[in-house]
């Protein structure tokens, strides 16, 4: 279906057929979250094809589907609400303007994440120019060995109220260097593959792996002071 859509999207008649099809299977439903996630994934190429042919409703549907996740991503990278909003808005604008450059060799969401991550990184670099070294290799593993290893016990986060835990997590991720934070956010939170993460931020696959290792170790160490067993909360 996706191939057919992409192939015959050039004339108005087919555009109308696609729009009707999209409506018939509920793509224009006001609440896309009612759709099971598998359906949401499967219909993405259809929506993208319709949006490419000029169907604004289809593009708005894509925006509605991903706006929360993209805001979460830009918030996690910039750690600043104003920058996160600007980055998200510009990402969707760019996606709309350059939709025809998306050649569907990846998921639309992955393409969108790449644009949004770059918008967020641009703002982060402006705000914290001295904390960034995306082009520099981070070698050496002398500092990798955890200094303190204490038991956390089962479900240690449950020792805190949800709001307290959220505050701790915000503090901990704020302290993580941007180079590491970006990779952690893309790989572990947004669940991009190593290759997709490398492509999204323009670094090599080994650099992604190395930074992810450091990010996970540093976060573990920072959380350790709050989560070790017997520690008063």
């Amino acid at each position, binding site marked *: 279906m996706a191939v057919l859509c992409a192939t015959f999207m050039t004339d108005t008649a087919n555009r109308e057929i696609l729009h009707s099809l999209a409506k018939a299977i509920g793509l224009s439903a006001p609440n896309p979250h009612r759709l099971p996630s598998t359906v949401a994934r499967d219909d993405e190429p259809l929506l993208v094809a319709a949006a490419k042919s000029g169907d604004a409703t289809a593009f708005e549907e894509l925006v509605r589907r991903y706006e929360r996740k993209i805001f979460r991503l830009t918030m996690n990278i910039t750690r600043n609400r104003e920058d996160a909003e600007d980055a998200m808005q510009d990402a969707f*604008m760019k996606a*709309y303007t350059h939709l025809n450059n998306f050649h569907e060799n990846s998921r639309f969401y992955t393409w969108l994440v790449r644009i949004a991550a770059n918008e967020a990184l641009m703002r982060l670099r402006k705000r914290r120019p001295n904390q960034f070294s995306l082009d520099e290799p981070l070698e050496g*593993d002398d500092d990798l060995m955890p200094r303190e*290893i204490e038991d956390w016990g089962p479900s240690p986060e449950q020792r805190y109220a949800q709001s307290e835990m959220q505050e701790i997590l915000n503090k901990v991720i704020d302290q993580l260097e941007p180079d590491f934070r970006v990779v952690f956010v893309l790989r572990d939170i947004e669940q991009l593959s190593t290759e997709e993460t490398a492509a999204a931020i323009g670094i090599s696959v080994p650099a992604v792996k190395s930074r992810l*290792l450091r990010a996970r170790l540093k*976060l573990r160490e920072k*959380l350790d002071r709050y989560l070790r067993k017997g520690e008063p909360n």
Partner: protein
Amino acid sequence: MNCKVVIREISNYIDGDLDVAIKQELELHLAHCQDCTMVLSQMKMTVEIFCDSQSVELPTDVRSRLHDALRRKMHEPGG
């Protein structure tokens, strides 16, 4: 395999991104090293705790501004 090598490969191990031979060596080490086993478990827990906490809501005003900007963009000549 010593602790230093295990820690260097621990993230790749979590991601299932190790050659079979290295994975076996690492698991052999984990079987008798309590510290590395604890670091592995806490690293997995760290990732889970962060993923579970990620239910960021899109504030209504932010959402409205996004959709207003998009509608303006879509109605631009050639937009």
